[in-house]
């Protein structure tokens, strides 16, 4: 029984992380129509940022906040070079461009920092709370709390703020939004930067548990995509739900089947969803008008 609860708790922590990354992914998809395969690499950037800042004896929480900014700045440069010029081209080209960005970032960091994993230890990572015979690592609790707060903040931002209204308008119908004077290009810029910066935080959060290494982003990207498909593109509550679902499937298959088949099971679940309900679990159907 305690093992069961332990698995659930671990799954929730991973799920919250995936939700946070998927949130950035789905925002970017909504506004730019870009399936960003370099999303996970920004988690890698955030994680390296956190690692180096902590090497300079910076406080962990502060380092995470700075890694938000670092990821955002790098995102800014990459958007200008790799995505902005393609804004009118086919979505497939943007997707390929993001694959190129991913290859570039992974290998550059391998070149600069070596492929060896780096350990980040903070005041949370060693400690754990024991409740009802279950060990809850403080870091995992921190991950869940911070992720949920950020998801909530983003939700609020989209629903309540002027920026959010523009983002929603731009993702529903860019042409009309432009007619109404919404600067869709600038919105695309800001959304991209915000989306990857959120992922930067996710990287900083995961660093103390899974270490920091150049290829860490790839599997995060894949999981985030599964989350987005499960939750429906452009759907924030869906992303959170989907995040938890993927996290739980993953930790249950690791706990009861085998760690090796974890990815296979996650993607099989994805197929199941796509077969049964191709629009995602939580999304509404939108037909093509003839």
């Amino acid at each position, binding site marked *: 029984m305690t093992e069961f609860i332990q698995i659930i708790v671990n799954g929730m922590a991973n799920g919250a992380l995936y939700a946070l990354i998927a949130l950035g992914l789905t925002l970017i998809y909504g506004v730019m129509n870009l399936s960003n395969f370099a999303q996970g690499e920004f988690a890698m950037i955030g994680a390296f940022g956190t690692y180096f800042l902590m090497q300079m004896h910076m406080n962990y929480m502060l380092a995470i906040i700075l890694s938000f900014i670092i990821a955002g700045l790098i995102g800014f440069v990459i958007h200008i070079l790799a995505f902005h010029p393609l804004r009118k081209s086919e979505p497939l*080209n943007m997707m*390929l461009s993001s*694959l*190129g960005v991913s290859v570039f970032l992974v290998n550059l960091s391998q070149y600069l920092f070596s492929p060896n994993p780096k350990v980040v230890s903070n005041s949370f990572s060693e400690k754990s709370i024991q409740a009802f015979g279950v060990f809850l690592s403080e870091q995992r609790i921190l991950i869940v709390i911070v992720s949920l707060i950020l998801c909530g903040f983003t939700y609020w931002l989209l629903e309540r703020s002027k920026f959010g209204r523009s983002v929603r308008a731009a993702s529903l119908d860019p042409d009309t939004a432009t007619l109404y004077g919404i600067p869709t290009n600038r919105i695309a810029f800001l959304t991209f930067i915000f989306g990857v910066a959120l992922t930067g935080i996710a990287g900083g959060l995961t660093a103390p548990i899974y270490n920091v290494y150049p290829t860490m982003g790839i599997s995060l990207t894949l999981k985030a995509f599964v989350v987005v498909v499960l939750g429906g*593109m452009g759907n924030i509550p869906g992303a959170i739900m989907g995040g938890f679902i993927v996290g739980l499937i993953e930790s249950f298959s690791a706990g009861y089947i085998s760690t*090796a088949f974890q990815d296979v099971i996650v993607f099989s679940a994805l197929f199941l969803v*796509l077969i049964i309900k191709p629009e995602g679990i939580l999304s509404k159907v939108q037909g093509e008008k003839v």
Partner: protein
Amino acid sequence: MTKTRLFYTAITILCIVCSIASLYIQNLYLLRVFILAAITAILALSVNILVGYTGQISLGHAGFFGIGAYMVGILNVNYHLSFWLCMVIAVLFSGLMGLILGLPTTKLKGHFLGIATLGFGVIVNGVLNNWMQVTGGPQGIRDIQSPTLFSIPLEYGNYFLGFIVACLSLLVLVIYLLIKSPVGRAWSCLKQDEITAYVTGIHVYRYKLLAFTLSGGIAGFAGALFAGYMTFISPDTFDLNQSISIITTVILGGSGTIAGPLLGTALLSFLNEWLRNFDELRLVIYGVILVAVIVFIPEGIYPFFKNKIISLFSRRKRVNQLKTSIDPHAGKDAVNE
């Protein structure tokens, strides 16, 4: 019909010339590069059927490639079937896998399809890596028999290259015949506008499934050839990077054309070899080039240069292009109110 015959003759001549030339290549390194490039070209043509002709994305083609290679590996090493029989089974089986993958995914579009096919690739790779008893896990399968064709041992690179060039030419011919037929017309229609395809009586899903099946089968064929040439296979050849590299080859070269994927293969193979000089920076530069080409030549290298050359040589064409750019009706067809 004359155009078809011309193409047919050109391909036959090219095939014979290349096959003979391949016997005179002395440099073993060069031979290996050519053979692997030819296998990549077959893969690129198979992805092109999906991406270029029917407008579907595949980010998991390494899965079919792997299934083809492993079918040959497993059947040949464990069950001692002859290479050719293994190859036939491999092609049929990966075609079947294409059909099965297509059943749920032909209803999907764009990004969803991309992620679903990507998932397929991840699942296949996961199985190859972890189903120890059958696939040998990360160690892979060794000592696959080199094929012999009419008592010509293909374990010699020259012969293998000649053989694979012949295969490639035949494939090009078959694809050409296909896209210049009602099937190709139906594909191009459903790629450009599915609703038009519906109302002209094209069974859209059946044609998409056909593309998936053919594409899977051809990629499996490439896998079988790969297994026969390398005699050793392991899962890391058939991973996500491979899938991405295949689709990149197609799009960079120019999807939806026959020459595009071939040109893409040639350029990227050359680029890959050249970048070996840069050692650790190899993939960094690769990434930069990839982004640069997409940003500057999004339509693909072959169509880009083709248009350039055409507009250089014919004034009439240039005038026509001017006309198009001021066409009052050039706007996107609005969807009906």
